């Protein structure tokens, strides 16, 4: 794995001589594909140009991002912060978060977000073939719920017809290859990496979009209401920067592939395998996107992990608020 070797590392950028005038903004981010726009913004110096000094903390676990936002230790979560967990946190602390971007994949739009990963010679082609087998998914209630929902949609009882094993992302390919499980429901780039090794394949592409909503977004860009209220001008600049970076990433994804190796676990020789995620900037967000987000919220509510109904629309930042 190639970690960043350059000095413009992800932690702080204090290289500018006019640092004194700059607004300091703290970001908590996850090292995943969906965060690409943030990497682009850092690489292209967009924050600096906007007069913003970024202090960023990298986390492996989306919960820590939410914790750091709630505690006021961070101002915003760049694209890729967990969309589902944001909803769950907002339900507990209404009025804390505003979403200003969504990231994921879609069947129609042809961006890959997730896949059902199996061995190359596996007879499994869909969830229906999993009866009596073992499926792996990500640890925690969010993905357990999504998996159970999809299984039920496929006519399987997740408690009786098969075993659902929750396992850390790093174990997914290993478990499939070693035969510990028959399939995994994995987020990108697991599928791409599995494919690149030739040890596994995608039996299904974007199954979550297929069964919940197409497109499907698992990532979101969020900022705290506190940040927005206390420093609205800075918040606006941050959103503009991310918007611009998202545009750049979407238009010229291949150009930015090499920087993925610097910010994520992906190795330089793997950057060309990984698939492009669907990145929606603040200005892009439309009704279809919001409906998709709503569909995820509804699944959570149906499965009982969200105590009350919530409107995706209310979570999304309103253009008027930025004035």
């Amino acid at each position: 794995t190639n970690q960043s070797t350059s000095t413009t590392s992800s932690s702080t950028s204090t290289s500018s001589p006019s640092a004194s005038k700059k607004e300091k903004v703290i970001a908590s981010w996850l090292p995943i594909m969906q965060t690409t726009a943030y990497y682009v913004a850092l690489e292209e110096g967009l924050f600096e140009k906007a007069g913003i000094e970024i202090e960023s903390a990298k986390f492996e676990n989306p919960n820590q991002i939410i914790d750091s936002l709630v505690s006021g230790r961070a101002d915003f979560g760049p694209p890729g912060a967990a969309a589902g967990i944001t909803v769950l946190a907002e339900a507990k602390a209404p009025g804390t978060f505003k979403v200003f971007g969504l990231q994921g994949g879609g069947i129609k739009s042809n961006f890959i977000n997730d896949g059902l990963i199996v061995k190359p010679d596996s007879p499994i082609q869909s969830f229906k073939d999993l009866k009596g087998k073992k499926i792996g998914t990500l640890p925690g209630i969010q993905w357990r719920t999504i998996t159970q929902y999809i299984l039920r949609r496929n006519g399987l009882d997740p408690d009786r017809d098969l075993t659902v094993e929750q396992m850390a992302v790093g174990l997914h390919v290993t478990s499939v290859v070693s035969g510990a499980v028959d399939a995994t429901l994995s987020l990108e780039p697991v599928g791409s990496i599995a494919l690149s090794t030739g040890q596994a394949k995608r039996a299904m592409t974007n199954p979550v979009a297929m069964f919940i909503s197409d497109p499907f977004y698992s990532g979101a860009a969020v900022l705290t209401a506190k940040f927005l209220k206390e420093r609205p001008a800075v918040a606006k600049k941050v959103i503009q920067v991310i918007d611009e970076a998202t545009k750049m990433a979407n238009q010229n994804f291949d150009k930015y592939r090499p920087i993925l190796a610097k910010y994520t676990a992906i190795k330089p020789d793997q950057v060309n395998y990984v698939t492009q995620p669907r990145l929606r900037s603040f200005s892009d967000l439309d009704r279809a996107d919001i409906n998709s987000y709503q569909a995820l919220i509804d699944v959570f509510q149906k499965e009982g992990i969200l105590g009350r109904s919530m409107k995706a629309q209310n979570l999304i930042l309103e253009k008027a608020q930025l004035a």
Partner: protein
Amino acid sequence: MVNPLLLPTPQATLTTLLNSLFSGDLWRDFSLTLYRSLYAFGIATVLGIPIGIVLGANEHLYRSCEFLIDFFRSTPATAVFPLFLVIFGIGDFSKIAVAAFAGWLIIFFNVAYGVMNARKTRIVAAKVMGASSWRIFLDVIFFETLPQTFIGLRTAVSLTLVVIIVAEMFIGSTHGMGQRIIDAQQTFDLTQMYASIIATGVMGYALNQMFLLIENKFIHWKGK
């Protein structure tokens, strides 16, 4: 001062704890984690004490394994989990094995050190009475090391619990307190999370108290 969402009040936490106790699903997670921890701890003890005594008594042998011992003591059990996955599969047992391994290292290390630091006079006395090495292990070194062994057991019982929880949290599992903690974390139900953490801590405390009771009952000669 601090956001009560992040740091719920003790009352709220205890209320949640009590509610979960009576609503029933806490017991399932609690007992599953307890079962896994005790299973792991049992393996760790059964393998740790005898091997610790034997290696501690053969300082030469111990020194030649020292690299491996210190190596594994310093590597997170969760990092070597892929190895356990390959050997034991994905089921419960691989997580138990990881915790047992971590606990075993602690028990083994403490017992071996206890033996190496033991006063030699009593061993020598047994030797002169014609006791075989085997008898000396059983009758003298074992007892001589017992206070240290108990420190090891208590460290290990807490550690196996910790590893089980961490495995349940980060490697993933079906049910268990670790699962419960991470679920609460993900649903941002920090009251539930702290309630679950408290339940876990109480489990650890209870296990430790059990040892303390045994220790106080049997090791009457400490400090004499």
